[in-house]
């Protein structure tokens, strides 16, 4: 029941999940109101490459410290030019509001001297309503 409430709170917000291909993550901004002790955001990581890549989703606070959020799934293989939904449930941890970054990271190509890790971060603001 609690999970349903969290999902409802998150999904009824104005986060329009219009996932087009070749976007690394959408949406990148969002404001969520929740009546529970957590808020939920659904993001759509995308794979702009033509080959399958491994994608990881992480949640950070404003100082880029990791946040103990529930990410489903947090790591997965994504086909070329594809995107898929990822549900992120962020606890308020006693606060009335919380700003977090939800980041999609691609795993860099191996066997190169200087690797580039691409990271797309969205900024999300959760408000708690009683």
């Amino acid at each position: 029941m609690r999970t349903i409430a969290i999902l409802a709170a998150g999904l009824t917000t104005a986060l329009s999940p219009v996932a087009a291909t070749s976007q690394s993550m959408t949406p990148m901004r969002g404001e969520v109101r929740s009546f529970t002790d957590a808020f939920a955001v659904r993001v759509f990581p995308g794979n702009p490459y033509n080959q399958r890549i491994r994608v990881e989703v992480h949640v950070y606070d404003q100082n880029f410290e990791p946040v103990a959020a529930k990410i489903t799934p947090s790591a997965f293989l994504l086909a070329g030019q594809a995107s898929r939904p990822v549900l992120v449930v962020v606890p308020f941890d006693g606060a009335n509001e919380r700003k977090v970054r939800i980041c999609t990271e691609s795993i860099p190509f191996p066997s190169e001297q200087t690797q580039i890790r691409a990271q797309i971060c969205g900024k999300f603001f959760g408000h708690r309503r009683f």
Partner: protein
Amino acid sequence: MKFLRAATAAGLLAACTGHQASAATGNVLFNGTITATCTITVNSNGTMTVSSNLQSLSSHNAGGSAGSAQVDTTGGVQLSVDPVTTTTVPTSDVTATTWTPTFATTGAQTIAETGTATALTVPGTSTVAVNLAGTKSGTNRFSAGNYQATVTLRCE
């Protein structure tokens, strides 16, 4: 009486023939909202070479090459590189190295080489050159072996 009815009907008919059916019009509104989006596509990784004094291992050095990535954005985002934390060095290298990642963009928006977060305000496609320089100070030198470092290019 018959004449009166006929005259009335004829009058009404004449009055109606001068009128056309009025056309109704309405406006249909379309709204669209584009939120900030950003796509990073890594084209190639970079290569670092060592300087003649063995105190610089950099993609700027002769024979080195910058990593390349493509950024497609609507604007309204920020591009940055993280401090380098993941490195692999030869076991013979036991001295400290200072790693400095930088980036520059061309294309939709030109950004001179910098290491600080910079706003991407122009929508379109920009090509990002990512450079990395490792430096040693004092009497420390880079040693033979394989070095590897990961630079995180972030769009947020």
